[in-house]
């Protein structure tokens, strides 16, 4: 996460009574929304502000809270607020979260939460796939790999998402067989992972920019996951981390390869 931070001194803009909504709107567009969009922290300093109105605070932060949810709230620091200012900020945040705009529109494609992976390590997915041969059920897989049944479930589900397992009979697909036969850490393995990710529904619908030079932020991915699945924010953030983790695992190899190319 990028932690670039900046501070808005409210008194300099409003004086001791922060009530002009035009000023609030300007700060919202110029400072708050760009920071939240880019995953950056922002501090709003209310030192020497004695009084504010609910309309002012609403115009200042409500859009950001509705757009970026709790994650957006976590990026904002409210400094030196008196009791009243704090109460108004709390109120606006509470109802803005309640009316968060993170809702699907009529043309949004909804996908199942089961199509969003939650196994962070591609290596362990491969280990589970290799262990499938000779294992009749999850319990046997668990005994064989030493992973908990819950984590076996995550990895099998991710393998299905990546097209390595047939969703109907649960058997390895051709690409699944290809994968288990590749050498660990090899370029062939990396290419198969990349192809599988690019062919997956989650990549095409939610993270088409996952493998680009500039990755989408955790928040951006989480927001898209929430939009397409209706997941809660905290779950969506965890699943976004899985996708970013996959990117890192593939990207590492790519960097080494480039270095070798240069040599």
């Amino acid at each position: 996460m990028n932690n670039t931070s900046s501070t808005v001194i409210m008194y300099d803009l409003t004086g001791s009574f922060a009530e002009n909504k035009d000023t609030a709107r300007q700060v919202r567009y110029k400072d708050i929304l760009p920071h939240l969009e880019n995953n950056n922290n922002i501090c709003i300093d209310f030192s020497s502000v004695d009084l504010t109105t609910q309309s002012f605070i609403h115009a200042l932060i409500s859009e950001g809270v509705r757009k970026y949810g709790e994650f957006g709230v976590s990026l904002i620091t409210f400094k030196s607020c008196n009791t009243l200012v704090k109460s108004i900020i709390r109120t606006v945040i509470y109802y803005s979260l309640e009316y968060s705009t993170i809702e699907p529109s009529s043309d949004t494609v909804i996908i199942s939460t089961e199509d969003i992976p939650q196994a962070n390590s591609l290596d362990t997915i491969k280990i589970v796939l290799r262990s499938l041969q000779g294992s009749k059920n999850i319990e046997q897989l668990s005994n064989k790999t030493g992973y908990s049944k819950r984590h076996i479930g995550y990895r099998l589900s991710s393998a299905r998402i990546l097209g390595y397992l047939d969703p109907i009979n649960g058997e390895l697909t051709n690409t699944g067989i290809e994968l288990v036969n590749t050498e660990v850490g090899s370029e062939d393995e990396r290419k198969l992972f990349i192809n599988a990710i690019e062919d997956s529904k989650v990549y095409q619908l939610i993270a088409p920019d996952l493998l680009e030079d500039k990755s989408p932020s955790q928040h951006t991915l989480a927001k898209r996951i929430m939009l397409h699945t209706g997941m809660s924010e905290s779950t969506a953030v965890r699943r976004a981390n899985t996708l970013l983790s996959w990117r890192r695992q593939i990207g590492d190899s790519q960097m080494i390869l480039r270095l070798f190319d240069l040599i």
Partner: protein
Amino acid sequence: MLSMLAAWGDYWVRQGVKINCKNTDAKGVDYVARMGLFKYISATNPREITEHEPSGSFVPITKLVNSSDRAKFMANLMPILNKNHSRYSDAVKYSLSELTNNVMEHAGGAPAFACAQYYKQSDKVSIGVADCGIGLYTSLSNTISVVDDCDSVMQSVKPGISGAVKSVYSSSDNAGAGLFYNKCIAHASRQYFAIISGSAAFRLRRKQNSIDFNASPVNDRHDVYQNLPNWKGTVVGLDIKVASGREFNNLSKRVLETYTRQYRPKKKVNINFE
């Protein structure tokens, strides 16, 4: 009443109508002149008066066309309040800010007129804001389903209703907070709060059954008037008597609690206060 007259006069003057004033010897005309009414009805001031510096007891009628006018009005108000009525200043500042914002946002571009008067004997401040704009029914119809003027007036004092886009609280610029907050301020100080639009009016009675604020005006002790002569626009008036800054803070806390009672998050939300 003065804000209404100024809005009404300004409306007709803009339509090219000439306004004549009669019975200008009547008691109170000096006061009306000092408050600046004649300026807005394009009538000659009928009597020679000594214009007092407004600081101390009143804020003369001010025409608010845009946010810049409103900002100037608020700026002019500050020294008057701080110097003479610091006991009331927070509540009055808050009220006037929210009311002028609210009326201007729902006026549909028509100018709003605001004024305030401090009454020493009863120790209260009266505030009035009026416009001859589109009225609450038309304004609220853009956001929620309202049946008629009476329904609009009742809906307008509920928290979160009068935002500028569809669904409650969903506007980025408009909290729909102003009228509800002002009703609560009047409730707490056992004073009147009234709103008029179209052919309907709502008046909060001074004496309420409970000190708790009601999100719905139906649960307040109130009067509703229907089939009144049509006022094309909106008028809001209230009296404030809040004894101290501390009292205002407590009042605000109670208003906000009423406001958010139905929206309290199911799990704790971490807000970074430093």
